[in-house]
């Protein structure tokens, strides 16, 4: 547990000093929103409406990918990752610390993106802000769990920026479907049924357990 807190503290302090990761992710997510606007110019707000939850999550996933790709850059400098591998604790706690830091950073970016999204496409997100935050947090948890595991893998391969999306995207389908479905229900009806939440909860549980255990082997040589 102290290992988890130490890693989380270290990652957040490091990010706070430079803020480069959050700024890059945020700018990128905003750009994606702008690109959507130009890519779908004549659609009109009404016809675009069914696609909006999906577009929002596409922006989130792209931003997350950008952030995850950098998550282990700081651990490669001075071979700090080997230093972590030496620690006499379950390496799963190291994973949880890194994943939690990614989750928090992504949450900050997501909040800003949601505001921009609401303004750009005239969506009334404010009315469902609280349940929407819950759904986004839940979806991001699954995204950040295997995302962090695969980032630890891809960062030590060639073409690391390419490798992460190739590894991550095909396995992200349950998270995406559940999160998009729940978001769509919130925007349409102001509330969300249990089915997508159940999918997200089960998927998160599986992803967290697998990543916690798998990290042990990823950090080994």
């Amino acid at each position, binding site marked *: 547990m*102290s*290992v988890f*807190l*130490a*890693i989380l*503290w*270290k990652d957040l*302090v*490091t990010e706070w*000093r*430079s803020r480069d990761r959050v700024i890059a992710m945020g700018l990128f997510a905003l750009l994606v929103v702008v690109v959507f606007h130009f890519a779908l110019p004549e659609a009109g707000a009404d016809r675009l409406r069914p696609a909006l939850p999906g577009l929002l999550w596409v922006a989130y996933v792209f931003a997350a990918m950008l952030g995850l790709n950098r998550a282990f850059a*700081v651990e490669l*400098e*001075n*071979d*700090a990752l*080997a*230093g*972590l*591998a*030496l*620690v*006499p*604790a379950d390496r799963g706690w190291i994973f949880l610390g890194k994943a939690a830091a990614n989750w928090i950073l992504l949450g900050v970016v997501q909040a800003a993106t949601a505001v921009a999204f609401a303004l750009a496409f005239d969506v009334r997100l404010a009315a469902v802000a609280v349940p929407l935050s819950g759904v986004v947090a839940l979806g991001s948890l699954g995204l950040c769990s295997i995302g962090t595991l695969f980032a630890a893998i891809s960062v030590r391969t060639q073409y690391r920026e390419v490798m992460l999306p190739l590894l991550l995207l095909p396995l992200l389908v349950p998270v995406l479907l559940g999160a998009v479905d729940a978001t769509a229900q919130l925007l349409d009806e102001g509330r969300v049924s249990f089915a997508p939440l159940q999918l997200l909860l089960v998927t998160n549980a599986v992803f967290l357990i697998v990543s916690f255990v798998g990290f042990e082997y990823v950090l*080994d*040589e």
Partner: protein
Amino acid sequence: MNAPVIEARGLEKRFGPVVALAGVDLDLPRGCVLAVVGPNGAGKTTLLRLLAGLARPTRGWVRLEGVARGRREARRRIGFIGHATFLYPALTARENLLFAARLYGVSDPAGRAEALLARQGLAQVADQPAGSFSRGMAQRLAIARGLVHDPQVVLLDEPFTGLDRPAADRLDAQLRNLRTEGRTCVLATHDLARAAAVADRALVLSRGRVAHAAEGAPLVGETLERAYLAAVDGSA
């Protein structure tokens, strides 16, 4: 007290068809400094990584004070000082040590960090980011980081690399300190002169095998030098 601190039998490491280490035995008592010398690719780093539990041996075993390698209690006994420093440039010297102390569950992280900063002569720069340190200062901080949990076994991988003369001399003195404190050290280097000056045992590795073993101070002698040169030549 005569039980060996580090005990290894038949250590072997293969990566697919590549043999990195082909059968090494070790018996190191408390307070012993072993120098592992040999050319690049002889298996020095592999040996250290196996001892540290960073890699698994293909065959053979390691025990540290009787505890099998790789177990948590074994990792707790090890301080690893690599030629990479394991430091985070964005954190200050003090924060780096605090972080390491928390990772190892040291009981009083702040006090321990303070004591180590003073011991390494870094108290003045404790609040500067580690990224601004010279190679020599970073090395001193890295040693403090490696000793943060007061390990009985200290593994050093090419610690002299990149140090200027005064910094290397200071490192020499630190190694002697580690020995007087009763810690068991394994020092991997390709600098035979430095190794011979500080160690009381030496192992010449060549292509993953022990080409020569020497013991007793002072650790000079033509056989050791000849064995080392032969190892270097043989790998060329």
